[in-house]
C-alpha cells in the first residue's frame, strides 16, 4: 500500500488547509479543546468506517443512486456516534449540539468516498478515511488550543493562565473575547494556511 495515502492528508493534502473542506465545523466547535477533540475523533471514525463500508460494496452499488447510498451509510455512522455520545458523554453531546448531526454534511467525508473509496479496496479506503479525519482533527485541535488558551485562559477546562495575572485580580492580563467568536477562528485558519504555504513551497500556485 502506498504510504502517501497515510501521509498526505496531514500536510500535503490536508482537508482544511489545502483542500479547504469542513471549514464550517472547524470554526464552530473549536472554542474548547474538549469539544474539538471529540469532534475530531467522531469525524475520523465516520470518514474511516464509511469509506471502508462504501469501498467494500462499491461494485454492487447502482451507479444512478450511489450518492444516496453513500449518504445513508454516512448517516448511519453519524447517528450511531450521536447516540453513543448522548449515552456516555452527555455534556460534550450537548456542547456540540447540532454539529454532530452536521458531520453528515461535512464535505470531507463525501469527498473521500467519491474520490477514493469508490475506486479502491476496503483497507486502503479505511486508512485514507482515518488519515483524512485525523488531518482534519489535527487542525481542529491546533485552532482549539489557540482559542481556548487565549480566549478563556484554560486548556481542557483547566486554568493555565495564573489567576493573579488577571486585571480583576490586580494583574495586567485579560482574556481576548474576540478569539471566542467564529470570525477569529477563520483568521486563525488563514494564519495556519499561510504558515503551511510558507514552509511547503510546492503548495504555492505559480504566478
Amino acid at each position: 500500500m502506498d504510504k502517501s495515502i497515510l501521509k498526505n492528508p496531514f500536510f500535503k493534502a490536508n482537508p482544511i488547509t489545502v483542500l479547504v473542506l469542513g471549514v464550517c465545523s472547524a470554526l464552530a466547535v473549536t472554542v474548547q479543546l474538549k469539544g474539538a477533540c471529540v469532534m475530531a475523533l467522531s469525524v475520523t471514525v465516520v470518514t474511516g468506517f464509511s469509506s471502508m463500508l462504501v469501498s467494500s460494496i462499491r461494485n454492487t452499488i447502482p451507479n444512478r443512486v450511489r450518492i444516496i447510498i453513500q449518504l445513508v451509510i454516512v448517516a448511519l455512522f453519524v447517528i450511531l456516534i450521536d447516540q453513543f455520545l448522548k449515552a456516555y458523554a452527555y455534556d460534550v453531546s450537548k456542547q456540540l449540539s447540532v454539529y454532530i448531526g452536521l458531520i453528515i454534511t461535512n464535505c470531507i467525508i463525501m469527498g473521500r468516498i467519491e474520490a477514493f473509496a469508490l475506486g479502491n479496496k476496503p483497507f486502503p479506503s479505511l486508512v485514507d478515511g482515518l488519515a483524512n479525519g485525523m488531518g482534519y482533527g489535527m487542525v481542529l485541535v491546533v485552532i482549539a488550543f489557540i482559542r481556548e488558551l487565549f480566549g478563556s485562559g484554560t486548556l481542557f477546562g483547566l486554568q493555565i493562565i495564573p489567576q493573579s495575572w488577571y486585571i480583576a485580580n490586580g494583574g495586567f492580563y485579560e482574556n481576548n473575547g474576540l478569539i471566542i467568536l467564529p470570525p477569529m477562528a477563520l483568521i486563525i485558519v488563514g494564519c495556519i494556511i499561510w504558515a503551511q504555504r510558507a514552509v511547503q513551497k510546492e503548495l504555492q500556485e505559480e504566478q
Partner: protein
Amino acid sequence: MKLNTNSNIYTIIYTTILVVLVAGVLAFVSTALKPKQQENIALEKMQSLLRAARLGDDASAQNNKSEYIKALYSEHMTNDFVLDYEGNVIEGEAFEIDLQSQYNIIKKIVAAKTPETAQALREQLQLPVFVCTIDEKVLNIVPCYGAGLWGPVWGYIAVEDDFETIYGAVFDHKGETPGLGAEIAHAPFYNQFVGKKLSKEGEFKSISIVKGGGQADNPNGVDAISGGTITSQSLEQAIAMWLNEYQAYFNIKRAAIGSDDCCGEECCGEEHNHDQNGKEPCAGEGCVCKKDSLNHESHEQYTK
C-alpha cells in the same frame, strides 16, 4: 452471470435492503442505549432544578459528577408534588410530568374562545412543584416551557417562601442560535432574575424581558438579549403563561402565610422564630410554613 447493476429492479431491491438493514441497526442501538440516555436526561433535570435554587454550580469540577448531583438533590430537594389548576395537591409524580404536554394544554387555554372550554382544559392540568430546602430557607421551584425561535425553551424558577420573590432561575433550550438566543442558558442572563418580584401593587405580574428592563429600580423586569429578540419574547411569554397557572396555588400559600393558622397570633409580639408545631397545616403537603421556617423580619413584611 454478471448482474446489471443499472437495472431498475436491481436499484429498487438494493436500496430497499440497504435501508432496512441500516434502520434495523439504528433501531437496535437506539433501544440498547435508551436507559443510559434517559438517565442522563434525568440527571440534567436534577441539575437544572438545583441550579434554579442556586446550588450545584461546582458540579462540573467534581470527579463523580452524577453522584454529586444525586447526593445534592436528595439532600436539598425535600419534596415534590403535582397540583391541579386550583392549587390542590393531586396524585402524580412531579419529576415525571412531561412539560411539553402541559404546555400544549396551557397554550389551548390561552387560545380558548369561551371560558367554558378554558375551564374544561384547565381541569386536565397537572402542574409540578419541587420543594427545595436550603438550611432554613424553603423554596418552591416551578417550571416553565414554551416555543422559542427554533425549538422549545424551558426553565425552572425558584420562588422564595413569600411566593413573590424569585430566589433563582435557570433556562435551557433545544436549539436557539448560539451566541444570540442561546444566551438564555448562561448565568449572566438567568442570574438577572435573582431578587425580582412576581407582583406589582398586590397583583400578579410576571417578569418582563425587554430592552432596558434590568434597571435596579424595576422589580418586574430583566434585560432581554440583543439579537435574541424572538427567544426573549417567547421566554417571557412562557414564564407568564406558566406562572399564571400557578397563581391559584401561590395565592393559597400567600393567604396562609398572613393568617393565624400558619404563623400563630404571637408572631409579631417578640423576637423569635415562628413555631408552627401543633397548629393546623396550611394547605396540606408541601406547606412552606414548617417549624422555624419563617423568621421575624419576613413575617413583618407580609403583615404590613
